[in-house]
């Protein structure tokens, strides 16, 4: 299996749990030649360029992006397909179309102080089907990440990040309907993701499937946004099968 690069999601200072390379947990041990990278930047474009620098020396690799990481992976597949062998967009609510959606209250009232151990435990539970994957190792890593990360201010989020995400998504869907994403892509969704419906995942798949023959959609049962933590065996099974299937 060629190199596989895991790109986490989350926006520091906004997402009520601190994501980072630690979020993937033990699932990384199931893959050979896996690298989990740390994303930084105030806009999607800055994040994408930073990830591009990190993967440029690796040769074409399979990018696995969670949520916002999925947007970055798909952006790189458009911008630099020579660096990308395949994309797995995982619970990528950030990439999915929204339309005039209804408000999501999953993170409406986090307990304070924000990004404390208990507040992050609350947030992680809120995005999960089950709380069983939330252990001390994860909480320690989230607390350490929150202490280290430079939080985005609400103003910077509204003025810079949100428009940059809208721009990245507009480019992505434009390419989907015109020349198409040039590398095989799969969308993987948790059956019980509280942040988005299964339909959101299916419409993300449909967007890519318009022009990319090797597109797949997968649902993993009894899992939320962190499906790779809740069902690591099934997650590995789906990603490995896709890698093997497109190689065939």
């Amino acid at each position, binding site marked *: 299996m060629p190199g596989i690069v895991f790109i986490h999601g989350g926006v520091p200072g906004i997402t009520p749990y601190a994501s980072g390379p630690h979020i993937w947990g033990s699932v990384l041990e199931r893959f050979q030649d896996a690298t989990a990278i740390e994303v930084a930047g105030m806009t999607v474009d800055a994040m994408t360029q930073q990830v591009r620098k990190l993967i440029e020396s690796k040769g074409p690799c399979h990018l696995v992006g969670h949520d916002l990481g999925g947007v970055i992976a798909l952006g790189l597949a458009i911008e630099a397909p020579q660096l990308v062998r395949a994309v797995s967009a995982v619970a990528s609510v950030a990439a999915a179309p929204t339309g005039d959606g209804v408000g999501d209250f999953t993170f409406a009232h986090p307990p304070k102080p924000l990004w404390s151990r208990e507040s992050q435990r609350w947030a992680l539970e809120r995005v999960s089907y089950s709380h069983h994957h939330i252990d001390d190792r994860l909480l320690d890593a989230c607390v350490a990440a929150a202490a280290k990360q430079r939080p985005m201010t609400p103003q910077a989020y509204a003025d810079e990040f949100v428009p940059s995400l809208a721009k990245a998504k507009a480019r992505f869907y434009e390419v989907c309907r015109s020349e198409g994403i040039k590398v095989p892509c799969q969308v993987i969704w948790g*059956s019980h993701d509280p942040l988005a419906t*299964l339909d959101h995942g*299916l419409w993300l*798949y449909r967007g890519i*499937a318009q022009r*990319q*023959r*090797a*597109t*797949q*959609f*997968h*649902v*993993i*049962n*009894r899992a939320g946004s962190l499906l790779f933590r809740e069902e690591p*065996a*099934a997650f590995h*099974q*789906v990603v*490995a*099968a*896709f890698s*093997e*299937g*497109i*190689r*065939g």
Partner: protein
Amino acid sequence: MASTSPLPQGRWIDVDGIRTRYFEAGSGEPIVFIYGGNFGTGDSASSAYTWSKQIGPLSESFRAITFDKLGQGETDNPKNDDYTMAAVVRHAAAFIRAMKLPPVHLVGHSRGGYAATRLTLDNHDLVRSLTVVNSGTLMPGVGTNEVVLAKPPYPTGTREGVRWVYENYSFDPKVVTEEWVDAVMATLALPKYQESVRKMTVEKLGSKLFAPELAREKRETLQWIDEGRLQRPVQVIWGYDDRTAAVDYGIQLYRMLARHERRALFHVINQSGHFPFREHPERFNALMRRWVPACQE
């Protein structure tokens, strides 16, 4: 059967008095494939050939088996005019018993997806896992075979007519090879198959017996799924562009199955019609290679 068929040499086994043709290769965990269609259709005819892109490749890792269903391919027709899906399911279960197989990984496509599911519900001891592929027969909602395949613009039973049917099932008509058409024509030419056509059409067993019995049992089968009676790991694989069985109904079926089973996966394969395992065999087989060992854990 075309001489270039990649299937291994066919074998025969007596299954409760029904001479049954089957194909097998490899060793290890048994996977049994059940194809779709039913006896007595004059413009198409499935046979074990349907799985020709699975048996060889998957036999490198597993004991891969497929067989001709009751009244289809070269297997004998039903006894006592029992042209029903229930008889098809009983025969399939009896085949697994006659082969003395340990619990199998059952894969069913289309009508075979229904048969595999009902077989599991009736015979849990025979089944280790279930894979359902583009099954308009099993899914809730409206199947659209009639919309897509009504009145082929060629005479019934001709090569052109057969090709037209399978091309309209497929996303890419080029997947319908001469070899595939040869396999269908070989089945259609069998006197015993023509007898089943006569039974289903001239004697009207299709409309008087097969269809109403299937409708009744389908209602029961979906109720049983809803009640959580399947009780085996299950995955649903769907060709996205199937015009006869829409992917949205595949999702509905998956939701029903997944409500009661943790190990429930749903997979959609792009640019594929009704036969994703023939249009994208590498990706279908990769899913199977990962599924079977996962069910052992």
